[in-house]
């Protein structure tokens, strides 16, 4: 009979294995190493999450006394038109941004593969904008996309297109913000570049021998081989887009004056959450808003994981 190991699927084997492993000094040292992170997580992430869950059932305003209000904050979510509006804005932004960001990042990563020794230089160039503070990107958006004097509309004018008022016409605000968000797709490019470099060349050679053209090789070799990276960026970018805050807040809500001139077309969910918490002093309600967003993100992520079983290939996978 062999001793149970960490990967042993037999009932009780894993538990016994962990206990046995913990007796080893190396394992204990490893846990000590991750202890600071665990303490930080408990204090700065799990703790506030539990606190916000409790606060979501109260009328806490950050200043005065607090009373329990039962489910009133959660009921209010369904009566408040700004919740639906901001959620729709955020979902539309996500639906527009994530596929576009992934497609452009993949195209850039594939170009990087072809530039040979200069790849390092261009990789740095693509990644540099990620270092730009999000606040600066928000300001940049107002300058580049101004309907009257912005560079984007001037460029469109050269090819005979009259550009829209990106920053002031409601329907164009979200597409404008999607475009400016592409400024920082460097991280996705780097991930795809690494994934592309790991695709075995012999698979391309075999496909070529089988008569596959460039599209066939991309469709049947590249995409399956980097599907893990594609799925990872899909999940991460979706979550990031659903939590969009800084660029929109800086561009449209940064000052009282700017806010007064902004329509709800720029009201993203987290911006509204922030307003409720710190401008209107409804911390309890803002907590309920935060938990609704958490649930939405969990549901979307679970759906993505379910669907991934059909599309994502992992090495060693029997499918």
């Amino acid at each position, binding site marked *: 009979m062999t001793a149970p190991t960490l990967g042993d699927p037999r009932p009780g084997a894993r538990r016994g294995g962990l206990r046995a492993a913990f007796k080893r000094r190396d394992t204990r040292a490893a846990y000590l190493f991750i202890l600071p992170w665990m303490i930080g997580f408990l204090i700065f992430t799990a703790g506030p999450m539990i606190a916000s869950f409790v606060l979501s059932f109260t009328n806490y305003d950050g*200043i005065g006394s607090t009373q329990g*209000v039962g489910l009133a904050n959660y009921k209010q979510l369904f009566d408040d038109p700004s919740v639906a509006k901001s959620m729709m804005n955020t979902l539309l932004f996500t639906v527009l941004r994530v596929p576009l960001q992934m497609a452009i990042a993949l195209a850039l990563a594939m170009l990087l593969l072809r530039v040979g020794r200069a790849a390092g230089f261009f990789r740095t160039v693509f990644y540099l904008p990620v270092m730009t503070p999000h606040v600066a990107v928000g300001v940049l958006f107002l300058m580049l996309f101004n309907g009257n004097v912005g560079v984007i509309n001037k460029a469109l004018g050269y090819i005979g297109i009259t550009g829209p*008022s990106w920053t002031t*016409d409601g329907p164009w605000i979200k597409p404008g913000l999607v475009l400016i968000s592409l400024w920082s797709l460097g991280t996705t490019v780097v991930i795809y570049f690494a994934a592309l470099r790991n695709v075995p060349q012999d698979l391309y050679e075999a496909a070529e021998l089988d008569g596959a053209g460039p599209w066939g090789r991309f469709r049947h070799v590249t995409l399956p081989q980097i599907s893990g990276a594609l799925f990872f960026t899909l999940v991460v970018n979706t979550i990031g887009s659903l939590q969009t805050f800084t660029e929109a807040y800086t561009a449209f809500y940064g000052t009282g004056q700017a*806010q007064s001139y902004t329509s709800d077309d720029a009201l993203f969910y987290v911006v509204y959450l922030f307003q409720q918490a710190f401008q209107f002093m*409804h911390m309890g*309600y803002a907590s309920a808003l935060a938990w609704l967003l958490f649930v939405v993100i969990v549901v979307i992520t679970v759906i993505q994981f379910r669907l991934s079983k059909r599309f994502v290939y992992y090495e060693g996978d029997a499918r």
Partner: protein
Amino acid sequence: MAAPPPKRIRRRLALAAAFGLLPLTAACGGVSLAGDDSSKSFTTMGYGLGDALSGARMDQARKALDIKIRVNEGSFDEQQFLSSVAADDPPDVVNMDRAKIGGYAARGALLPLDACAKKEHINVDAYRDPAIDEATLNGKLYGLPNSYDSRVMLINGDLLKDEGLTPEDFDTSDWDRLERTTKKLVKSDGGKLSRIGFNPKIPEFFPMWVKANGGALITDDGRTATLNSPKVVEALEYTSNLLKIQGGWGKVKALNDSFDMFGTKNPMARKQIGALPFENWWVNVLAQNSPKTDLVAVPFKDRKGRTINWTTGYSFAIPKGSKHPDEACTFIKAMSSAKTWQIGAKAKRAEAKKNKGPYVGDFTGNAAADRDIETKIWKPSGNEAYDKATRTLYDVQDKGFAVPANAAGSEFTSAWQKAVNRVLSGEQTPKEALDQAQKQAQSVLDIANQGKR
């Protein structure tokens, strides 16, 4: 290549590193290890030392207090303020937008100043009524003015000459004429708006248009919203139409956003705008940057031809939990006294002279200080346009009104501003938008007045 250390030493090093990282990690999370005894210094929030006036006034406050004053420059930050009050570590005094005072006062975040005024023998009647009314909730005073922004019509005199118009063409008591003038002055080049004829500055200045039309956004006691009253709806219909006839809100705002408001290429100098109502501070900016521009400042009139002046501004207030409430009271008295304002105004006049621009006066919210500055410190500069503008600004000081303080504060403001924006974006008609805003605003007022959500 050096041999790796023995296994036992490696383990000990690992343990030491793990423990060593503990406090570092905690510090990264925001725990301050450095001592900072806030009881030994007096802290302010929301007051900047950007010009000679503010610096000279702060010097007077330093003389009045026996404690070191730490000035946290930068504008008032709601998140920072709320967090500091919640943590029971607020600044000792805060300079905040008066429109927000009601909301904070209703939640108990600010201390009433009535006892302070009595103790320090502050004559509250010396301050202008709108500034006091806007900072008074349920009969209690929560702030004393640090600024008093007046609004007048600023007209591009150079453009008037070019187009054969007179300032009377921008008479806000005659809405039909104003519309005709707007249509005449608006200009587009190749489908792109190149000149705004007249900018009514809504949503921001909507309360002034409502007042001009004989209406109000809220009752005087600050408890009942009147956002969908016929006068308010009519004011929104008229002002939104003024933007519509110039190509719509998107185009007007896009051009407006491209203006260099603080430089020599400002829209008055470049003739990019015919006229607009604006706060007094822009006259000061234009005086420094475009002294040769023919600026015409005239009072904003209601539909009966009477001068009205929507005033807003900042006031000093004392947060709940201030470690030095008595000193805060002394500070507020020192900063808002007529004597301090005079000293500050003299410093600003000297600064203007140094920069070779005209000094266009200061408007303080303290009626005695305003009189002193107008009669003793301000002198006609010889620049006729700006001298006349200054006279107009002093003339409208007594015609001020403010939106009454209310317990919902920012939430009430947000309700009517969003309604105006929904109309400008074409989402709703004025009546629909204001009906929705009325419902929303009354709901937040009721909740705030009851003290619960």
